[in-house]
């Protein structure tokens, strides 16, 4: 952090390529970081959103070859379930049921002669302690063959999958950061070796190790900021197009792309994180290397 407060001595020559490929390598790393971060955060937000929608919902499906009979049973289900405290039930229209099938079968592919079930959407008020068993008990007399689904099995699988993806994204983030640290360490060592004669002079005129480390830290911080900004911009462009593609593929099948505010802030902090990682890595590398000199 000293590099932020001490004016650099500017003893390191600024090469024409301003750090060579290092800022670009950092840019690639930050790009991967940004994508990993967004994947983890948006998936987490999506699962939470789905969970919030489905936690207080149960579907009752009545399948019957006779469509009219199924509808009749469904109406009775709506009536009996509606008598329960703090519970609302609604029979989905044919259009709504067909719309639910469209993401799987394709728009316009749900033909009129396709047998579709009658579906009752049961919604609890917040705080209502209603379980799947309560609904099954309520409907057993009017529709004994009804399938009551509280979505929890599917939701649990989805949550497990989301957690797996989150863990994977975190692992990728960790590996990317470690790789960045390794690259900056090698870059710093190479630069130290290239400027060994200059560093010897600085030592002989009274420079302490931290002065030299500050200079390296400052220079690598600049590379980190450059790489971080380039990586972030590239990631934002990618995410923009990815969002548009996801929206066009089908709104029911893929979760709506959404990045929570915390995620946006984290994304915005990425260049700063890159700057800190590169600066601290360069600084510690220089300090540890200089310890071995006289």
């Amino acid at each position: 952090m000293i590099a932020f407060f001490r004016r650099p001595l500017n003893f390191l020559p600024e090469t024409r390529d301003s750090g060579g490929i290092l800022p670009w390598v950092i840019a690639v790393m930050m790009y991967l970081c940004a994508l990993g971060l967004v994947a983890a955060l948006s998936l987490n937000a999506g699962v939470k959103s789905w969970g919030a929608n489905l936690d207080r919902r149960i579907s009752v499906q009545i399948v019957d070859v006779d469509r009219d009979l199924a509808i009749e049973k469904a109406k009775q289900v709506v009536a009996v379930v509606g008598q329960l405290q703090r519970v609302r039930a609604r029979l989905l229209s044919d259009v709504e049921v067909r719309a639910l099938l469209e993401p799987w079968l394709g728009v316009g592919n749900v033909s009129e002669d396709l047998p579709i079930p009658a579906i009752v959407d049961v919604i609890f008020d917040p705080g209502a302690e209603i379980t799947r068993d309560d609904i099954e008990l309520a409907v057993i007399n009017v529709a004994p063959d009804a399938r009551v689904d509280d979505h929890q099995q599917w939701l649990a699988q989805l949550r497990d999958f989301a957690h797996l993806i989150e863990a994977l994204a975190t692992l990728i983030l960790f590996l990317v950061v470690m790789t960045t640290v390794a690259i900056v360490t090698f870059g710093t060592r190479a630069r130290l070796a290239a400027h060994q004669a200059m560093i010897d002079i600085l030592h002989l005129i009274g420079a302490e190790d931290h002065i030299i480390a500050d200079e390296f830290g400052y220079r690598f911080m600049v590379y980190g900021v450059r790489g971080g900004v380039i990586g972030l911009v590239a990631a934002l462009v990618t995410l923009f197009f990815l969002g548009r593609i996801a929206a066009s593929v089908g709104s029911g099948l893929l979760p709506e792309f959404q990045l929570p505010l915390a995620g946006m802030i984290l994304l915005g902090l990425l260049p700063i994180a890159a700057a800190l990682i590169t600066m601290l890595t360069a600084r510690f590398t220089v300090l540890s290397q200089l310890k071995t000199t006289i």
Partner: protein
Amino acid sequence: MGGDIAVRGSRYLTDKSQWRSCPLQNEPGSCMSNLVKFENVGMRYGVGPEVLRDINLTLEPASFHFLTGPSGAGKTSLLKLLYLAERPSRGLINLFGKDIVSLPRKALPTLRRRIGVVFQDFRLLDHLTALENVALPLRIAGAKEHQVSEHVKELLSWVGLEDRIDAKPPTLSGGEKQRVAIARAVIGRPDLLLADEPTGNVDPEMSERLMHLFVELNKLGTTTIIATHDIALLDRIKANVIRIEKGRLITKPPSALAGSQGVEVVGSSIEMDAPPTISGSGAIAAVRTDND
């Protein structure tokens, strides 16, 4: 020649209040102490043979010395020990009242700031201007930027490089580089000035001018050691001579011509303005080589 470097009396260097009135003022009774003391010092590089053997040497504050000897005798190694680029393999070195052998590494920069070194190959940083090169020691010491600029410009003017402050070393002549290197060595008002073959790369006239510069710095209170092969230089400037051969010291007593200031220029063609004098400085150096 790049400008007249006859000593005009740098205001920055001659400001007595800025110099340590006694180089060891922080050490109790140190004004009477030796600035440098070597006791049975030996040095080798790695596992190689000893390049310095049984060096016993005492240098007093504000003394002037030539260090001479054939190539490979160990002059540069001795200078390296003096400017703390190496540590001895054996023996004791006391510099500014500190035992260098046992001193922790982190304590060395403070001592190094009290030593000015003029390297034979200058060792200027090629991508920095003359001004930035000379400013480095002050900036490293944390001096305020406006002071740095002021002092460095004045010093560069003093060595006759006022028109070359923005020039980078690759565009400077050998003599100009030498003067930049000297300015960098003295900008921190060192207690000990070491110069390795400072006249090796310049013509005789420039050589004489540079030597006057060192003499004047010595008169300002800086203990000066100049490593040289130049016999003519030793004849012209009468001072104590430390001779080193095969890694051992051989003392040559001060010339009878050397006056009370410990150094005297003989037959100089260089005109010098009245140099400032500092009371208590410029004592005749005592060089003891106990091994002889």
